[in-house]
């Protein structure tokens, strides 16, 4: 589904990622770890086309991201659910509307999806806060809403950047179970995290591989 071919990236001040090669087949589950500033978020952005590699290529579903126009990318993003590290919301819409946003912009019938939406909000424990606006949520609540938005479109791929950074242990476990469940249904999952306990817990539920990013290179399959 996602394939990096000698992909490199530089923000202009020296090369950050160099010659990364990596294939995430459909249905796989990967963790991405590495020190702060190593480029985890950058790598994830390459994987959903928010950034385009400055060398090499990134293929999404067999298509090179550099060849996709803005509308092509928009189409692709509807198939990839993303939890951003700095959960991005539209502040004047309610949490329910924010979670439903991917449905809205792709022209889906909101009424038909209402049941689905409410069930999902219940799952991540946000049902009582559904009518609140993003700035009225706690940090952990925002992260849970971001996860809900990432999976509302039933995407083929789920990419999550530090999805549990602000969440207590119990809730983390619950979100992890959700991701494991989705992976069992055939979704490809890629999670960047610095929470080693989470990874250890995950090993019990799914067959996940851990990718370690450091010094601009990737050590695939590293065990903890």
């Amino acid at each position, binding site marked *: 589904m996602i394939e990096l071919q000698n992909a490199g990236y530089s923000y202009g001040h020296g090369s950050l990622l160099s010659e990364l090669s990596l294939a995430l087949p459909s249905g796989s589950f990967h963790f991405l770890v590495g020190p702060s500033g190593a480029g985890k978020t950058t790598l994830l952005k390459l994987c959903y086309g928010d950034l385009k590699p400055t060398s090499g290529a990134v293929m999404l579903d067999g298509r090179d991201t550099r060849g996709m126009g803005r509308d092509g990318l928009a189409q692709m993003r509807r198939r990839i659910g993303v939890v951003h590290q700095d959960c*991005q919301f539209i502040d004047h819409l309610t949490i329910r509307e924010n979670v439903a946003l991917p449905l809205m912009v792709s022209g889906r019938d909101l009424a038909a999806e209402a049941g689905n939406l409410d069930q999902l909000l219940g799952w991540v424990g946000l049902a009582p806060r559904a009518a609140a606006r993003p700035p009225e949520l706690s940090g952990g609540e925002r992260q849970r809403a971001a996860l809900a938005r990432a999976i509302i479109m039933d995407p083929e791929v789920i990419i999550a950047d530090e999805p549990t950074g602000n969440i207590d242990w119990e809730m983390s476990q619950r979100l992890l179970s959700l991701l494991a469940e989705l992976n069992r249904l055939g979704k490809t999952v890629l999670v960047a995290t610095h929470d080693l306990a989470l990874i250890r817990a995950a090993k019990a539920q799914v067959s996940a591989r851990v990718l370690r990013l450091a010094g601009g290179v990737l050590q695939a399959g590293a065990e903890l």
Partner: protein
Amino acid sequence: MNRLRALLDAALGDRQADRVVPPAGHTVWLTVLTAAAMAFLAVFALALSLATGRLADRWADSLAQAATIRVSAPPEQADAQVAAVAAILAATPGVADARPLEETEQAALLEPWLGPDLPLDTLPLPRLIEVTGTEDLDVEGLRQRLAAEVPGATYDDHTRWRAPLVQAADRLRTLGLLALSLIAGTLAAMVTLAAQAALAANRPVIRVLRLVGARDAYVARAFTRRYTLRAAAGAALGTVLGGIATAFLPEASAAGGFLTGLGFTGAAWLLLPLVPLFAGLVAFLATRRAALSALARFE
């Protein structure tokens, strides 16, 4: 076709997409107020152009009309010379009408200077013939033929003192049209800037929309709709106010006709609804351009 559909979409279209633009941003009000002020001024400029246009036309007309031929001749030759002038005038293309002045009319003209008691009938007064011409009248040719055939006749067409007035009216009309285009330009610039300000302020919103898979057209439409409607509404308000204000301007009157008479007359009122329509169109095009170029830039 595409433009038309986009326009209709913008006017009626996707209320759901509209929700994603924050509701009552200050730049939105700035747009409304700007459009209102511009429309108000546009109404005035329009009134000025129309009034001066009317004025210039009226004067240009009367230039051709209000000429006088004075025949100074000994009394016994006067009738013959007047007849000769009449014959020449009859043969001149572009003369709509020619009429010798009655003696009483002539006396009325002279009264301020000579007093009512002057025995005009005893005087060897010149005869005056009022000539009404059309635009085709070849004044120079007529003058030469008169000089050659009727030595006592002098053609006086008042051009000397009226021409600068007509010229001035023409200039004012040009000025009014200039002001109109200036205003339209300013409106476009301001709506563009307001839209850009809104887009810049809503960059986080746009970023989120992009991240969840919105296409450019979806985002642009939301902004275009908002700004087109606001600019049109603001312009409608300004037009109404401008219309009311011009209605209270001094009336056209015979005496001060060129200075007053700025108000709209008759069918000219029908021009007013065009102002908000035009403003809406300008806003639509300006916002759309701003939105699409901003979206390409934000990348």
